[in-house]
């Protein structure tokens, strides 16, 4: 591809500037522009035209970004194709036609570029001053390695060494076998460190087991150690006891011997001496007391003998005292006797009066007997027999009065009992009549039970209604869920009956559908894109045709054919020639002109024709591609339809209109949901049926309890048939319940009434026999009374019976009389008793007085004498008291004396007993014995103390054995043994401490094994280090591979191109050095590498590394130009764009370079940008007009 024209339409500072870069003999363009003239802008414009504008372009300062445009004409050397186009900014459709109207397919320009991208274009086909310098320096730095030099020059890579170094340094930064800081090495080191840490953190099973085992062993050893310690402690205690016993044993033995010596001394009690002293004191006191009492006894006996009272008088003490006491009573009873006689007299007169009244009304017998009674002086009421008789009759009368009083009560009882019997009978009769009215009363209990078991009917109805609502809701939900089953027209049961394909199958099929859809989409998209492209192409073609109608090949061929026919007719038909030769010539001329016109037209518009042909070829290719795509699309559609058909069949077989995969997923979920809802609905309906059945059962029970007729039941049952949702059911149920409740109340009321009547009747029936018994009893009692009345009356009088009421009045009088008689009898008895007492007193007093009456006594009144006797008696009694006191005192003193004697004996005996106790014969021996006993006790106490201490020390062993053992060794030996045992204990204690620490350590270690994740965390960290290290290793290998394949490529390139490139480069190098160097040749350097050498015209060879900078630059330029020329001879032609790279060369060398570039431009296009006027001057002066074309920028 070459650049025929560059249009800077709106780019940088340029507006509608065009550079004609079309070819001549030499295609060398020198574009000059001073600084700021836009040279760099033009350079960028070429790359922008070919490869698009970079987003960060600096060329938008004058024009708006949307207005930036660069255009040009590209020409393909091989095919002769041209492309006139415009490039604008943006990411899509930036390449436009020359009118900047329609986008051009990027592939169109791609054919011109032949796969060269921006970077390759700039590196391989571009050359700048900096690259030249860098290349020269690289040659020198590289030591003249021919391969590198050739490769770098061939690729236009000044920094090839840099690439290699970059690979190497990158690789070394990542890994090196002996490095430590490289990434991978550092990671390895970290991993190593982590592994070490891991070892510390990891708790292997063996460690865990070992720790557990160690702990168990330590604990067992500790147990053993404890036992040893206890044994040692026991031994040490024993040793210490022995050692202590050594001190005690001599004393213990001495005490024991002393005790043996005092063995015969009695063991006197502690209070022995006290007791002895006490007894001796008591003895002395008793002796003194006894003699004193003895003297008192003698004195008392003398006083007794002097006292002598009158015994006779004292012997009659009671009689005298009694007679003296009765004196006052005697005087009182004398007065009472007089009063009683007076009352007797008054009473008699009163009895007499009543007797007179009684006898008036009394039966004749009484009157007679009363009148015949003799009157007494003291007794006015009759004789005692008569009185007795009256009292006997009176008792009868009293009885009779009782009978008379009983009669009234009995008569009342008979009446009452008779009345009661009659009432009972009458009430029973009435109750029977009333009960007859309750013959149809019903027992409410069964109905009540039914109603109780049913409870409140509203609750049942509410529950039923609620359940109906729940059912309705469930149904609605089911219907809703059913409606969610899109594409399914069946009912609920059908929906539930559908067994969907397995999820796996659905997944596979949806996956297949997705894949086929994706393929279809891709195909359709591709086809649409190509269709659009074709459409654009057709439009372009149409535009091309419309703009200028160009003769087609057919038209040209037809014109030629017409021309040839005329020529042919002119040669073959003489007749015609003669007749119309002139016409034929004219026609021939016209035909020839037509052909020429057509050809001229085509020649003039060759570019347009080429474009049209190109467009037509593209159209044809697109059409064939479209056809191919259409087939593929059809295939994809067919495959998709097949998959979809299979998918649809899968569902339509189940009666479902198939949707998308997600639709069917939802379908599946919906069906699952529907199943759950249907199950729920069925459950709720079962519950509703249950509620309904419960109500029906309750209705039946109510009817049965209400005893509703069967035909009625049938009717009502029929009425319940319409359905579960018929509200009549609960209406009937409610009304039936209401009716039953009312009926129950009625029944209960009547039942209670009837029961009350029955109870009343039963009460009367129960009461009647008792009333009859009472009546009979009353009648019997009355009869009995009658007999008693009669009998009593007969007992009183033969004329009885008489009237009970009159008898009662008479009996009142008689009763008073009887009372008076009784009083009279009592009073008579009092008078008799008083008289007898008087007589008796006088008789006894006379007798007593007679015993003590002296002959000289003048007083005869016994009562006075009694008084005197009584006074004498009192004097004798006082004397007697004195005598008694003396006797008493004598007895007491005698007793005291006897006690004193007894105490004397006791004390004496006690002292004797003490002697026996002490084993002494005389009391005087006792003090000495007491002293000896005390000393013995002291030894005993000492012995016992020592013995006790020794027993305590001996602990569990026998005392004698212990004493023997303790005595067997000296104290120093015991000390030694104690010391040894204490050392043993210290050793055990140290062992214990050690073991304690060990157990603590093990337990501590075990406690750390608590399931923590430290090791795991480190493992994860190591895994991340490993992950990073792996990435680094990959990067390391990438760099190593890059380095090595680059080396190989360099070597490969040298082998393939060394000779031709060096030949061309040698030519350019000679020219560029103005003949200073005449040859370039390879040679092996000291390292065995193939190095480049230059042969100076003097015949000297010069290694590259020995060259000056300028020469090295020239060498690099020569090699670059040679490589370009060599590659273009065998491959693609592209413009070589050079940016002012000759600025360091002197005029000769610059001229030589211009010539070289002009020479190169014979094979390809060379565009040199410069801002050095002298180069322009050199070019115009040193090169021919056809060898270079100079363009001025900013002019």
């Amino acid at each position: 591809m070459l650049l025929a024209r560059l249009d800077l339409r709106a780019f940088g500072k340029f507006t509608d500037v065009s550079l004609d870069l079309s070819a001549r003999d030499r295609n060398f363009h020198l574009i000059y522009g001073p600084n700021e003239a836009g040279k760099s802008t033009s350079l960028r414009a070429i790359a922008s035209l070919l490869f698009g504008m970079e987003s960060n372009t600096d060329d938008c300062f004058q024009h708006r970004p949307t207005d930036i445009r660069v255009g040009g004409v590209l020409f393909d050397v091989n095919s002769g194709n041209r492309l006139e186009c415009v490039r604008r900014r943006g990411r899509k459709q930036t390449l436009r036609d020359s009118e900047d109207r329609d986008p051009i397919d990027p592939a169109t320009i791609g054919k011109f570029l032949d796969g060269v991208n921006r970077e390759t274009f700039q590196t391989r086909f571009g050359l700048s001053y900096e690259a030249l310098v860098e290349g020269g320096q690289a040659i020198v730095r590289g030591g003249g390695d021919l391969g590198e030099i050739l490769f770098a020059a061939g690729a236009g890579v000044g920094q090839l060494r840099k690439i290699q170094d970059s690979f190497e340094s990158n690789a070394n930064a990542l890994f090196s076998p002996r490095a430590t800081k490289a990434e991978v090495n550092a990671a390895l080191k970290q991993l190593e460190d982590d592994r070490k840490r891991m070892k510390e953190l990891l708790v292997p099973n063996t460690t865990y087991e070992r720790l557990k085992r160690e702990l168990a062993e330590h604990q067992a050893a500790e147990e053993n150690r404890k036992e040893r310690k206890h044994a040692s402690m026991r031994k040490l205690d024993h040793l210490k006891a022995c050692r202590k016993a050594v001190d005690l044993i001599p004393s213990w033995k001495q005490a024991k011997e002393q005790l043996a010596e005092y063995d015969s001394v009695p063991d006197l009690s502690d209070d022995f001496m006290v007791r002895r002293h006490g007894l001796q004191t008591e003895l002395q006191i008793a002796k003194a007391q006894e003699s004193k009492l003895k003297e008192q006894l003698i004195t008392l006996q003398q006083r007794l003998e002097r006292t002598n009272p009158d015994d006779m008088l004292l012997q009659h003490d009671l009689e005298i005292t009694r007679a003296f006491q009765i004196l006052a009573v005697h005087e009182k009873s004398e007065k009472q006797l007089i009063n009683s006689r007076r009352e007797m007299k008054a009473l008699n007169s009163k009895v007499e009066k009543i007797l007179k009244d009684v006898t008036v009304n009394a039966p004749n017998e009484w009157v007679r007997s009363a009148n015949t009674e003799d009157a007494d002086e003291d007794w006015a009421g009759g004789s005692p027999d008569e009185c007795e008789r009256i009292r006997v009759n009176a008792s009868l009368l009293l009885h009779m009065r009782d009978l008379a009083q009983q009669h009234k009560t009995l008569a009342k009882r008979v009446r009452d009992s008779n009345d009661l019997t009659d009432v009972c009978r009458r009430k029973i009769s009435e109750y029977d009549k009333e009960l007859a009215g309750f013959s149809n009363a019903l027992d409410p209990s069964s109905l009540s039970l039914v109603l109780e078991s049913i409870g409140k009917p509203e609750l049942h109805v509410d529950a039923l209604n609620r359940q109906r609502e729940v059912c309705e809701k469930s149904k609605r939900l089911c219907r809703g869920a059913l409606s969610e089953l899109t594409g399914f027209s069946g009912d609920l049961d059908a929906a539930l009956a559908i067994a969907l394909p397995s999820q796996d199958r659905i997944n596979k099929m949806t996956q297949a559908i997705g894949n086929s859809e994706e393929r279809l989409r891709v195909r359709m998209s591709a086809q649409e894109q190509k269709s659009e492209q074709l459409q654009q192409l057709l439009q372009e073609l149409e535009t091309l045709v419309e703009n200028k109608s160009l003769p087609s090949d057919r038209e040209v061929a037809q014109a030629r054919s017409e021309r040839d026919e005329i020529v042919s007719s002119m040669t073959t038909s003489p007749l015609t020639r003669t007749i119309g030769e002139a016409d034929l010539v004219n026609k021939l001329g016209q035909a020839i002109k037509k052909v020429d016109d057509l050809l001229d037209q085509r020649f003039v518009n060759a570019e347009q024709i080429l474009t049209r042909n190109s467009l037509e070829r593209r159209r044809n290719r697109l059409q064939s591609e479209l056809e191919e795509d259409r087939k593929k699309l059809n295939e994809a559609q067919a495959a998709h339809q097949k998959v979809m058909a299979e998918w649809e069949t899968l569902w339509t077989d189940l009666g479902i209109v198939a949707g998308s995969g997600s639709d069917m997923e939802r379908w599946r979920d919906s069906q699952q949901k529907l199943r759950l809802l249907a199950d729920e609905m069925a459950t709720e309906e079962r519950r509703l049926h249950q509620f309904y059945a419960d109500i029906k059962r309750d209705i039946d029970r109510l009817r049965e309890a209400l005893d509703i007729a069967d035909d009625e039941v049938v009717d009502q049952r029929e009425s319940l048939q319409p359905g579960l949702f018929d509200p009549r059911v609960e209406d009937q149920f409610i009304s039936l319940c209401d009716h039953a409740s009312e009926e129950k109340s009625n029944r209960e009321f009547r039942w209670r009434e009837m029961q009350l009547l029955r109870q009343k009747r039963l009460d009367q029936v129960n009461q009647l026999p008792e009333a009859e018994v009472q009546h009979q009893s009353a009648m019997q009692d009355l009869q009995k009374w009658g007999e008693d009345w009669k009998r009593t009356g007969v007992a009183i009088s033969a004329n009885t019976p008489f009237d009970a009421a009159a008898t009662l009045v008479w009996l009142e009088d008689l009763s008073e009389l009887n009372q008076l008689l009784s009083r009279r009898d009592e009073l008579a008895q009092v008078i008799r008793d008083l008289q007898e007492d008087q007589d008796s007193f006088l008789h006894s007093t006379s007798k007593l007085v007679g015993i003590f009456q002296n002959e000289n006594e003048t007083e005869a009144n016994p009562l006075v004498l009694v008084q005197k006797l009584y006074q004498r008696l009192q004097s004798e009694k006082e004397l007697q008291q004195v005598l008694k006191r003396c006797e008493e005192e004598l007895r007491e003193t005698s007793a005291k004396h006897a006690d004193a004697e007894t105490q004397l004996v006791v004390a004496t005996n006690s002292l004797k007993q003490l002697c026996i106790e002490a084993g002494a014969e005389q009391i005087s021996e006792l003090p000495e014995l007491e002293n000896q006993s005390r000393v013995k006790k002291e030894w005993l106490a000492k012995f016992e103390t020592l013995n006790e201490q020794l027993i305590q020390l001996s602990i569990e062993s026998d005392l004698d054995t212990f004493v023997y053992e303790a005595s067997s060794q000296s104290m120093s030996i015991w000390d030694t043994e104690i010391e040894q045992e204490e050392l043993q204990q210290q050793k055990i204690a140290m062992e214990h401490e050690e073991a304690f620490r060990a157990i603590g350590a093990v337990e501590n270690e075990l406690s750390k094994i608590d399931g923590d994740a430290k090791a795991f965390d480190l493992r994860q960290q190591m895994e991340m280090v490993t992950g990073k290290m792996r990435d680094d290793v990959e990067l390391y290998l990438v760099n190593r591979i890059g380095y090595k394949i680059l080396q190989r490529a360099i070597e490969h390139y040298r082998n393939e191109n060394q000779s031709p490139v060096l030949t061309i480069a040698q030519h350019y190098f000679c020219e560029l050095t103005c003949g200073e160097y005449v040859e370039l040749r390879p040679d092996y350097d000291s390292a065995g590498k193939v190095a480049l050498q230059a042969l100076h015209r003097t015949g000297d060879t010069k290694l590259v590394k020995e060259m000056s900078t300028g020469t090295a630059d020239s060498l690099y330029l020569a090699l670059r130009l040679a490589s370009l020329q060599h590659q273009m001879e065998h491959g693609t032609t592209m413009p070589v764009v050079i940016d002012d790279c000759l600025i360091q060369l002197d005029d000769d060398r610059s001229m030589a370079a211009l010539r070289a570039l002009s020479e190169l431009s014979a094979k390809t296009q060379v565009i040199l940008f410069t801002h050095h006027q002298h180069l322009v001057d050199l070019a115009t002066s040193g090169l021919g007009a056809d060898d270079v074309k100079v363009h001025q920028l900013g002019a």
Partner: protein
Amino acid sequence: MNRKIIHAADVHLDSPLQKLSHYEGAPAGQIRRASRIALSNLVDLAIEQSVDLVVIAGDLFDGDWPDQNTGLFFVKEASRLVAAGIPLVVIRGNHDAANIITRTLPLPRNPDGSEVMLSASKVDSRIFESIGIAVHGKSFLNRVEKENLALSYPPALGGFFNLGLLHTSLGGFEGHDPYAPCTPRELADKNYDYWALGHIHQRGNHEVDGAAPVVYSGNIQGRHIRECGPKGCYLIEVNDRQETKMTFKPLDVVRWEKFSIDAEDLSHHEEVVDKFQGWMSDKLIENESRLLVSRVEVRGATTLNSALRQNRESLLNGCRSVALGQGADQVWVENLKIRTVDPARENSIQDQEGPFASLSAVIHELSDQGGLLDLISDEIDQLKKKMPHDLFDNAGESSLLDQAILQDLLASATAEIRSGMSKAE
């Protein structure tokens, strides 16, 4: 009687999340102890759901991880479960058969007094009378179990919900060693009500039509990028007709996801970051509060191949910046893999002329594995002496000697060279 059972497997307690390369700002705290938290989530779920039984179908531990603390952590969690009155039945799989940390673990006993771990010497049957469930299972005695263990399982116990607990690869799965081989048909013939399987980390039901479910619950926490997507256990609801309803319950705390980009969809290499951002936003919602560990992969033929490879680091950093900025400390970008290729280059002069042709020729020579390995044999030898063996020994993605990986390295190296050679002078 309705019952609930949790079926889990392949806990791989304290197994680390693999190939996570730490970077600045990465939410490292979120990945800590993921497998432990997942196990705790399992126990929490069991208690929250008041399940009647928990079964773990092997590979509770990693065989090569000897830390007793791992076992003790399990003991804590198992004790928590048992204290809540929930029995636990576990079998050993190939990974924990050889793991000796289980030997001395003070494992709790179930509420009925039975042992948690099933025997390896015979098929154990745990009968839970109160809940009407019989569990039949056998632990692996050795790491390698080639026998068909299912054959020795007893027939179903009448009146019970029979659950078979087995660590097996069934007929074989790619990437999993074939242990205790058997077929779903053989399992179905036992007439059990449910087969709880372990070993395969990808969950799935392999039941024979009309027979009981034969289910892999998968592992409870993904450990590397090949274990993508939600991980957890199955909650099985059993009704009184011994019918089962399975519900997957995620337990993972870190979720691995791979984001593949078709290079054809890219018009500029930087769009990778934009596309990742869009994908990440969706995934963040989908994954709720879990940490998302993502790998971005670009595949396909594209002219952007070189640009993508040359800018891989910057794109990866771009994705990580997006994750840091918008991932709310919830996204970890594990890696960016460029698996693109150049479109057909036969028309390009770049590879047919001059140094580029030589480069192409050299690359072509190295396109077979042997050539490339020869090229870097020294480097490989040096690395082998220093690096962990699994980087080179194991087959599959983890080995650097894998053909695809080597070719990928070659492609990256080539892109680097081309990049260097194409830079403007």
